[in-house]
């Protein structure tokens, strides 16, 4: 029973993990979907435009679980590698994406800034936002 419960919880967890976070943009944005590869390029500041539209990525703050989940799921890299990457990029004049410290602020930012793309937990989704990807 207990094993079942644990298994269930684990399954549920996996499920939840698989569907907990969403990559969002403003409802006004013309983009409707993004591939993980596109998302990764956007957040590593390798790609700035999608369909001719300037994309502004918004990170969650580094301490948030959201951020960690995003890095693991989408960027598929650890913090150390990431830091090295940004140090390298810094010398090329490229800064990491803007950081917002809360899900609310991410949502507010994405809503207010044209072309902004952020990620939030699914639970935070509202009508003004458009889901581009789920992870």
């Amino acid at each position, binding site marked *: 029973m207990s094993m079942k419960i644990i298994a269930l919880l684990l399954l549920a967890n996996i499920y939840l993990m698989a569907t907990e976070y969403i990559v969002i943009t403003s409802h006004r944005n013309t983009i409707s979907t993004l591939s993980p590869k596109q998302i990764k390029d956007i957040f590593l500041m390798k790609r700035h435009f999608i369909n001719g539209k300037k994309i*502004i990525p918004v990170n969650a703050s580094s301490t948030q679980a959201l951020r960690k989940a995003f890095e693991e799921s989408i960027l598929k890299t650890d913090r150390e590698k990431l830091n090295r990457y940004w140090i390298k990029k810094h010398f090329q004049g490229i800064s990491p994406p*803007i950081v*917002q410290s809360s899900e*609310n*602020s991410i949502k*507010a930012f994405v809503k*207010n800034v044209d072309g902004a793309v952020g990620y939030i937990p699914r639970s935070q989704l509202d009508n003004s936002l458009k889901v581009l990807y789920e992870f």
Partner: protein
Amino acid sequence: MSFKFKIVSLILSVSLIPYIFLMIYMGNAFQDRYHAQTQHEMDTQLHLTIETIDRYLSTLKRDMLFISRLDIMNDIYSKDVDRRISKLLETKKNQLHLEGNLYVVDNNHTIIASSNPNEILKSYHEDSFFVQKVHSSFDGSDIGSIVLDFSLKNIKNLFKNTKDRYYYIIAYGKKVLYKKYILKDKIEVRSSLSAKPNIEIVLVQNKDKFLTLLTTYKRWFAIALFLGLVIISLISLYFVNRLIRPIIELSKVTDEITKNQDYSYRVEINADDEVGRLSTSFNKMITSMNSALTKLKDESKNRERLIEEQSKSEMLKELSEKLSRYLSPQIYHSIFTGDQDVTLTSKRKKLTIFFSDIVGFTDTTDTMESEDLSDLLNDYLNEMTIVALKHGATIDKYIGDSIMLFFGDPYSQGVKNDAISCIDMALEMRSSMDKLHIRWKERGFTKPFKMRIGIHTGYCTVGNFGSKDRLEYTIIGTSVNIASRIESTAKPDEILISEETKLLIEDRFESTKSAEIIPKGFKRAISLYRVDKIKQEKKPKDKSKHRIDTIYIQDGDLLLTDEILNNLSHEEKVELKSRLNSTMNRLRL
């Protein structure tokens, strides 16, 4: 007012007035300088303060610029829901110790974030000096502004006010933080901020403090002034005393001299200046005064002696005049002129000796009163003496009615002239007798006196004879006896002369031989001659005198007929006039 006081006043006024003016001028200059220095110091201080303020303001600006460029400013998009900007502003405010709040305002003038949470979402419209535009970090678009609601208190915090120096601000023409209690009496410097020319910073120095400082210096100044006055006074007193001392010395010596009449005082001043020269001159003056005074004293003594001597000599003169009556004028004269010494001396000399007497005088006088006789005798002798002296005879002596006199000593005109003078005299005496007869007749003496005269010329011993105590100037010798003998031989009114005399006078007088006698003690006879008259023709040179003589004595009367007078020459008239005057004078006596 003493001389010293005058000099001291003069020196003091000459030295003190410029000194006081100088000190006052210096004091004022010092005050001005101190004022200028204070102002300069304040200027410097203000300048430094303004630099500090400017630096502070630019730092603020830089800080705001820095903030505006932070990524966090992108939170304006998210309306700062995380309060990240507000926290930052708050931190910054505290960090900078800012008075007033920092705001982040979006383009709709809505306060997105503020150091004062109460202000958030309010509208913000005020102008501010500190406004910094904010641009998004990703696309550079204008997303709002950072505004500092700047309070001037921030500047005030930079002021280092002291008790006596204050800052205040004039912002847009209004005094800010102006302390009312700052006195009106103050020094002020002001300057505008270079970043904000509308804001002036004023630095005020309370003049009270400044004055206190000056007053302190003024006290020292007054002390210095006083000391200067004292020193100048002492120095001038010292010099005046030195200057005056010789003058006081001089005046003291003058007083001493005046008081004691002692001219031995001298001024001891050894100065090589005018006063020194004055004292030297003074000493010289005293010396010469002293010698003059001594001379004067001597002179006055001499004068006294002279007066004494004069009175003595007057007395002597008087005495001698009295004495002279007892002496023959010639003797008297020669004794008193010192020609003849009053000593027992004698000399031999050829003289003409004259003797006369009145015939029968003793018989005549027997019947007369002695007073009358004395009168008569004196009258006679007086008249005879006048005539004798007129002719220069030396009267030897009167013996009763007899007169003895001689010619040739002490003055001689030569033996011949002496003899002539003697005969002239004898003739005049005889005519004088006629005048005496007239006079005596008037007085009642009817019996006429007749005189007889004997004259002889011969050597005699003449001089002072007698003892040392009682001397007599007289002549002795045979000739004297002969003359006396001749006289006693003569008849009344007769002038008998010896041959010796006759030989001397014969060219002047007519004479006839009368008799021959052998005087007592003589072995040889002496021829005697009677003098008759003056030879008229034999005196051409002295004609006038002779004629006048003739006129005068003819028979004892004046022969002044008109004929005679008309025939007189001018010289004769003069001679006659002089004789008549002389006679008149005698009559007056």
